[in-house]
């Protein structure tokens, strides 16, 4: 091997249970380059990098640093080989100063002379053009300053290889510019930098080479100068795979839910929803596609009455009376009391959807305990409902008294979806309903959704697998950083088009969206 290679991965495979996260990945990182690792959610890019950083250990294959095979079992080992990773969720102690957080990594330093540490931190920051006060406490810092601390933590240990997991996801465009400037300086310094990302324009702007992963496999590594946004998208999403999911034509579609100008800001002051406008119709499945964390959760929670909004309207068209009611700023209970039949299957099944320690019957009661006039709860009907769901959806459980957390992922989801459907909803919102489910359970869920659609329910389906979205949904709404970048016809749109809408920068987004 030439001495130009910093790290080489050979035939790396990593499995989590029966899920293969990385399959036979071989990849090399050169000295003094910026390499982008590009891929959709769940394609295994973070897992792969975690194996270099010592968070996970590969099941098969080997890692070579400077041409020699090494064993990296912990972040400490990684530091030994001068590898450092900045994770998406910062690992910092809030009440410590920047310098105190940084000196934590230096496990050999027993002296603890804070003045010397402060000076060294300042020196590193100045060398690469960071703006950082070593004595500032973390809780007083902005997100970008915290990221700076994380990067300096790695540099403080003299690491030569720096891995950044989606570093720009939390930054403003100006901060991103600053970061890129710093990264270029580090490259000049001879350091290797790996950026995990799904933002195409950034890949093209900063990196020397791009490694594309898809479904855990390494597709190709290309020089950035030979790549274009569309060539990368093609590699990222790949060929369309036929799944044979049934899709009937919508009948008697009328507007059931109309969302106008929805905007919301998160606690950190980041805009999570930005002027969202769309209609959901009865008897159709509206898919929502997007990179994870683009605002899908906030959008569904806004409709369900869980997310405070800055502006906008959510108009529900009541099929019985024909009245239009605004759901904004209503609690879930108020929404239900208004006669709006809205069901929500959240992403976090055992957190928001069901109570893990309670049994199936009791979980059914969560939706019905207010019914009836007696002060005692009615246990009979929920029990019947639980039995019905177990029978109809073939939930694999010893009985209705089994705590939900003991069931497998697929069975938990069946219980949750079954409960929500039993309320005879007019609007059914499901978020990542097949995540972690095996093929059979997935198809059961698709069939249930189709059944609801045929009953005239307006189904909103947030998904991550583009193949599923393309075969199941009548229309696909693409969301990108809290904004809608396109609403496409599910029957005619191609995977690449949706992929581009999901990842493209703001400038050139409208071209592809052909509406409906």
């Amino acid at each position, binding site marked *: 091997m030439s001495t130009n290679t910093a790290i080489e991965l050979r035939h790396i495979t990593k499995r989590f249970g029966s899920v293969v996260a990385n399959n036979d990945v071989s990849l090399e990182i050169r000295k003094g380059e910026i390499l982008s690792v590009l891929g959709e959610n769940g394609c295994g890019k973070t897992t792969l990098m975690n194996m270099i950083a010592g968070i996970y250990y590969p099941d098969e294959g080997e890692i070579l640093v400077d041409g020699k095979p090494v064993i990296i079992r912990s972040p400490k080992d990684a530091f030994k080989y001068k590898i450092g990773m900045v994770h998406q969720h910062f690992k910092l102690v809030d*009440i410590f100063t920047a310098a105190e957080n940084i*000196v934590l990594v230096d496990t050999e330093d027993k002296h603890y002379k804070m003045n010397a540490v402060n000076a060294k931190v300042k020196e590193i920051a100045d060398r690469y053009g960071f703006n950082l006060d070593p004595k500032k406490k973390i809780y007083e810092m902005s997100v970008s300053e915290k990221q700076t601390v994380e990067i300096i933590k790695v540099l403080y240990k003299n690491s030569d290889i720096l891995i950044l997991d989606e570093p720009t996801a939390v930054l403003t465009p100006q901060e991103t510019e600053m970061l890129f400037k710093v990264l270029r300086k580090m490259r000049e310094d001879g350091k290797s930098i790996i950026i995990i990302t799904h933002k195409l324009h950034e890949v093209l702007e900063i990196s020397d080479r791009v490694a594309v992963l898809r479904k855990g496999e390494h597709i190709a590594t290309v020089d950035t100068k030979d790549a274009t946004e569309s060539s990368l998208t093609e590699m990222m999403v790949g060929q369309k795979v036929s799944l044979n999911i049934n899709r009937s034509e919508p009948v008697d579609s009328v507007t059931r839910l109309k969302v106008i100008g929805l905007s919301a800001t998160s606690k950190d002051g980041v805009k999570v929803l930005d002027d969202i406008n769309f209609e959901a119709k009865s008897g159709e499945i509206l898919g929502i596609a997007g990179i994870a964390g683009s605002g899908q959760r906030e959008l569904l929670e806004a409709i369900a009455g869980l997310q405070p909004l800055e502006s906008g309207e959510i108009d529900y068209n009541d099929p019985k009376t024909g009245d239009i009611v605004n759901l904004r700023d209503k609690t879930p209970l108020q929404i239900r009391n208004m006669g709006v039949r809205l069901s929500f299957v959240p992403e976090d099944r055992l957190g928001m959807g069901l109570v893990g320690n309670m049994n199936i019957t009791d979980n059914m009661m969560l939706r019905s305990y207010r019914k009836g006039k007696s002060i005692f709860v009615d246990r009979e009907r929920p029990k019947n409902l639980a039995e019905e769901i177990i029978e109809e959806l073939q939930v694999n459980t010893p009985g209705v008294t089994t705590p939900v957390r003991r069931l497998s992922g697929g069975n938990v989801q069946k219980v949750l979806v079954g409960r929500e459907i039993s309320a005879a909803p007019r609007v059914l919102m499901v978020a990542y309903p097949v995540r972690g489910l095996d093929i059979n359970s997935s198809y059961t869920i698709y069939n249930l959704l189709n059944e609801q659609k045929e009953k005239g329910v307006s189904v909103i389906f947030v998904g991550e697998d583009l193949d599923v979205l393309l075969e199941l949904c009548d229309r696909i709404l693409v969301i990108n950083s809290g904004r809608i970048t396109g609403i496409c016809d599910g029957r005619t749109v191609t995977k690449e088009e949706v992929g581009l809408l999901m990842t493209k920068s703001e400038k050139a987004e409208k071209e592809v969206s052909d509406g409906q």
Partner: protein
Amino acid sequence: MSIVNYLLSAFSIGIIFLLGATGEIITEKVGHLNLGIPGVMSVGATGGCIALQAMYKYRDVLPGWLIVLVALLACFICAGLMGLLYCFITVSLHSNQNVTGLALTTFGVGITKYEMSKLTRIGAHEYLYALPIFRQPFSDSTNALKYCGVMTFIALFIAIAVSFVLYRTKVGLNLRAVGESAATADAVGINVTAYKYVATIIGSGIAGFGGLYYIMDYAGSQEAYLSIEALGWLSVALVIFSLWKPLVCVFGSFVFGLLYIANAYAASILGITLPMKLTPIMKLLPYVATVIILVLTSIRKRRENQPPAGLGITYFREER
């Protein structure tokens, strides 16, 4: 002289709270809320008393300091074992800290009642007579310092040393990092489990001294073991009152001492006699002070005055 007496007595009883709270602070700084402190203190006292009893026959042969040293060691080991048990259940078995702590208190107090009642009732004064290092510090208030028992100095020394280690050394920085965010500490290669175990065991040992001090020095009687539990809860309250800072704790323990015995001195100092009915209410004063401090710090919301961010949170290394 009653005011001087009052202040000295307050200082003297404050040492119990100081030892208990310093031990608990170390434990809480690694993120573990040990509600077993009353039990730990009781068991520490029991261990010390058993060792003393065993050594009592040799009081004419062995030097006094050795007997005291062995008693302290026995106390530290017994209380430390309670800490080890707590750690095993909460750190290794990931069990709920509050439930485990409360169970430990029940267990510790129970075992103390059983063991202490078995001990031969040697008058406490006989111990004190034989071992002048354990001595009621303020029997002669005119020359208080001279009569301070050795444990008073040990307690003050421990509090200052703990503060130094926590805030002035790398070990202390690591320890606080574990309590603030175990995941962060783990990611930089700090052995989280080891820090939790060592801190909790040492903390429990120190808290155990509080129990022994009470029996041998302050109360001067084995019979007093039943009161340790109540004093233990006050120590837990003192941790909150001191904002998790050992040096504030030195001052806080004195305040708690003043409040705790205010009832007994009200008559002689203020010249008023409180009705008997008020006595139990007066005993609540330290808790009232704790609540007031809690309210004040909650209003000011200074991050440095908050409990360790990881307090009470069981740490699992991230698995997928």
